[in-house]
């Protein structure tokens, strides 16, 4: 960092670059004193993370796992150097939970159950912290992970470089980020991805059962039917769906993730735990049960995928229904539905895929992650 020639970065008055031999103060490192403020991490035997190709890898960015609103503001208003300085200065203060936090906690609960049933198996969730952040923020992030007792052991702090290559290297099954640009890039590379937002309201969710809700068109399925609706209206849409009822829809970006969840569910069914399964999936679609919904269900069946509950809202708002379900995460391609869900406290994320994006692109600058 160039803070005038030769001037070094200080942390709480202590010289960051001081080397061990010239120490004049009692503690060797400034953060040793600060660490006493934090909750000590309980020394439990840590299970070894699974090999990426065997696991279901969920990559989350730092801003969706934790609440970094204040820091993001500093970055946007005062620039990178100030942002880094602030982060380092507050290194011992853990961040609060972000929108993906309860989802990650629920993944861990599923893992605990899987390990009980299959102690040798590597078919588990593996959460990787995938952030554009500079490694100077690394210690604060690790301290926060310790504080909240999360089980994340793998991360990439790319210091500004694109995460896409690393997503592939980790065989990522799902990528969650606050940066819509990166999410779109991931989708283009065939990786399931969604944009998450900081929400004021986040209703309490189960800590024993992971609940994942999906929209149908342009999320699980392709956007082909949505295109017809947008071009020719509702009547033509119904006609088309009825006529093609037995022709499976093409797959959408999140189909693979539903498939992965289904595989894990079967691991529980195999041990007689269908009623008590810690994973539950939902389809929450604007299609109607009477007509257009049939094609959706038949498509899922043709893929060999099960969904626990299918909710056909026939165009009604999704917020109230989701509020009853209390999923840890809800995926939709339309911001209208994402916002509606979020208003009622459901953690909703946006899948920027398909025709809905071209028709209703939000105006204005999209803030990017600190590089």
């Amino acid at each position: 960092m160039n803070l005038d020639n030769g001037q070094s970065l200080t942390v709480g008055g202590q010289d960051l670059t001081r080397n061990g031999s010239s120490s004049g103060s009692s503690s060797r490192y400034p953060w040793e004193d600060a660490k006493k403020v934090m909750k000590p991490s309980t020394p439990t035997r840590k299970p070894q993370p699974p090999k990426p190709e065997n696991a279901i890898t969920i990559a989350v960015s730092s801003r969706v796992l934790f609440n970094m609103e204040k820091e993001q503001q500093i970055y946007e208003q005062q620039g990178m150097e100030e942002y880094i300085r602030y982060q380092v200065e507050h290194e011992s203060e853990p961040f609060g939970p972000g929108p993906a936090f309860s989802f990650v906690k629920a993944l861990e609960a599923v893992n605990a159950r899987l390990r009980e049933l299959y102690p040798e198996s590597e078919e588990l969730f593996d959460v990787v912290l995938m952030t554009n952040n500079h490694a100077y923020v690394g210690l604060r992030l690790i301290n926060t992970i310790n504080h909240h007792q999360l089980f994340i052991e793998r991360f990439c702090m790319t210091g500004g470089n694109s995460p896409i290559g690393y997503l592939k290297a980790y065989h990522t099954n799902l990528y969650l980020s606050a940066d819509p640009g990166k999410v779109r890039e991931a989708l283009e590379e065939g990786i399931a991805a969604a944009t998450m937002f900081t929400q004021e309201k986040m209703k309490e969710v189960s800590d024993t059962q992971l609940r994942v809700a999906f929209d149908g068109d342009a999320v699980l399925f392709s956007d082909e039917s949505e295109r017809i609706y947008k071009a020719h209206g509702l009547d033509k849409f119904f006609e088309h769906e009825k006529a093609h009822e037995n022709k499976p829809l093409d797959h959408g970006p999140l189909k693979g993730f539903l498939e992965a969840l289904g595989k894990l569910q079967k691991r529980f069914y195999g041990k007689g735990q269908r009623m008590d399964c810690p994973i539950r999936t939902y389809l929450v679609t604007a299609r109607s049960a009477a007509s257009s919904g049939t094609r959706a269900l038949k498509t899922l069946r043709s893929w060999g995928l099960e969904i626990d509950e299918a909710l056909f809202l026939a165009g009604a708002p999704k917020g109230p229904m989701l509020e009853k379900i209390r999923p840890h995460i809800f995926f939709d391609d339309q911001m209208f539905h994402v916002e509606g869900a979020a208003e009622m406290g459901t953690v909703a994320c946006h899948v920027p895929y398909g025709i809905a994006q071209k028709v209703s692109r939000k105006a204005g600058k999209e803030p990017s992650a600190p590089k």
Partner: protein
Amino acid sequence: MASSCYGDALIRRIKEKASKWIYRNPVPGPDGTHLNHHLPKSGLRKKDADAVVVAVTSDAVFDPGADEGDAFRVGLAFPLLQALQRVNERLLEQNPSESLLFDIILITTSSQRQQQSSQIMRSTRHHGLEVGRFCFSSEDNFLESLLENNVQLFLSTDRNETSQASQRGVLSALLDQRAASSPSEQLRVLFCGDTVVQPNAAGPMSTIQHDAQSFPAQLGKMRQRFGMLDSPLVIILMVSQGGRDSCSSALQVLRSCGVGVDEAYCLAGAPQSPILSLLHPHFLLSDDFGELEE
């Protein structure tokens, strides 16, 4: 054959201030070393003390196989040398009287190359490489040359050579094909975190915590000359076996030596090569250099 080290234009960077130095045919001194006698001794000494001496073997810089007529073809360390030069250029841009610079030595480590001194010097100029000094040594005495020239980092494509140098206490790194595809505009140095935290007693990384003048400490100081963005020098940490605790310790150890890390990757046992192929480091600093998986 005794080794001869040419004090070539380390002072090229201050050529605006100095009159033309005769560096192409230096006058041999009484002890056989070739220094540029026209230099004001005190000036050279002051600047030398701050310089970070990096020695690279000629077989790494020039393709041992081919030669295009007069000059050798460049080898896999070419982007590395360009990146080292780039760091020096940027440092001088910021501060024309900067003394913390890379002092690059091109060293031969075989009698065969030792006898190709003029061709090597010619090739260096042909490719626009800024080498501070040449050391024409053989396999028998290159280690002495490294020590005599206070080399802080020795880079070679030969595992045998790096091993020998390391045993004599010279921090060494093995160069491989990865270096060839690394950028020429940004020097990317990778610290392997597992040995930062638990260094082998005999290995070079064990010195990292004790030596304020060590290469890592100097590198850290250099990095501090630049801002967060657009730095020509980037320091990367990779922890391959350990998890976040190892990563945390490694970050703290490096920081205590004045080394701020830009990018950090913690693998916790995941395969290394997919990640390494994305990092494009010019070289890796580790006690187990060369033991990383292919």
